[in-house]
């Protein structure tokens, strides 16, 4: 009985915002679970509204109950930010998948092109060390007929007053 009176006195102090934050939380939790205290909360506010001249000419006693019945069927409240986050969630996932797919696609294309180039015989890597010397020798063999033809053509052109645009460079194997 004494505890009940203390609850009611705390409720009265809560209405006046005269409790510590801890007491407010505790009293509100108690209030939300106790139907009788809720009725008292309503009546205390009714008296306050009358003393402060906020009462309408007529008022209904079952408004809170009818609102509570509708609210019980409502989904939990969400902020606009949360709504946007929920509705755009699938878009963000789709964008992430698209990005991953794009990167994978580029990688595949690059791999495909590289393999084709290597198959066509055009070197794509720089030879080093002994390999470089051997390859240079092979290239010289391939170029020799071209150089011979070019030299012959250049001498012909020089006699007609044209300068050859390629300077011949000698190649000496060590």
């Amino acid at each position, binding site marked *: 009985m004494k505890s009940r009176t203390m609850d*009611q*006195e705390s409720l*009265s*102090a*809560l*209405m*006046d*915002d*005269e409790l510590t*934050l801890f007491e*407010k*939380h505790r009293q*509100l939790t108690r*209030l*939300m*679970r106790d139907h009788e205290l*809720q*009725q*008292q*909360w*309503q*009546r*205390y*506010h*009714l*008296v*306050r*509204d*009358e*003393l*402060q001249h*906020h*009462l*309408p*000419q*007529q*008022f*209904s*006693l*079952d*408004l*809170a109950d*009818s*609102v*509570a019945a*509708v*609210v*019980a069927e*409502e989904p*939990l*409240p*969400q*902020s*606009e930010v*949360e709504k946007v986050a929920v509705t755009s969630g699938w878009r963000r996932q789709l964008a992430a998948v698209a990005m991953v797919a794009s990167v994978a696609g580029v990688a595949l294309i690059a791999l495909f092109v590289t393999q084709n180039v290597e198959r066509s015989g055009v070197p794509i890597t720089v030879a080093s060390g002994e390999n470089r010397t051997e390859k240079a020798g092979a290239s010289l063999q391939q170029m020799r007929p071209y150089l011979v033809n070019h030299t012959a053509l250049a001498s012909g052109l020089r006699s007609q007053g044209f300068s050859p645009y390629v300077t011949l460079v000698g190649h000496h194997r060590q």
Partner: protein
Amino acid sequence: MSDADVDLLLVRKVQQGDKAAFDLLVRKYQNRVLGVISQYIRHSGDIHDVAQESFISAYRAIGNFRGESAFYSWLYRIAVNTSKNWIKARGCRPPGSDIDVADAIDYGMEPLTNYDTPDTLIHSHQVAEVIGQVMEEMPQDLRLTITMREVEGMSYQEIAEAIDIPVGTVRSRIFRAREMIDNRIRPLMEGGD
């Protein structure tokens, strides 16, 4: 006098999914909201419907309430907008035309929603009569304290300093005064009209 902290605590609880906290806000502000709506709409059944719609709109939008203004100011705007929308939806002439808005509502058009009309209506003069009577019968120290609190809006500390009593005594007197009034109001509320 401000109890905005309590409102904000309740709002945060609602935002965290506690519907019982919203019920406390409704019980706290229902009379004021009815008062606001009654400035636009005359029929008590319609006022009840629009008040219900206002509170449901508030519940749906409460996720966006950040506490930048007082909860009641926010709720007040919702009640005003709901009242105006209700008037428009019923095809009534807008304010400023040759028929007064309140008269336009009296034309008896179909209601916007199918919410039940209130089963129990109380006239404020009944409440005012009872409260006035109890205040007269109340010991003077209680009457003075509750008046300083509810009418003058003074804090417990201010009351304590003004009449030179401990803050604990102020708290106790205010509670006893409220209890005296509540004991007489309760039968009226439980019985209805």
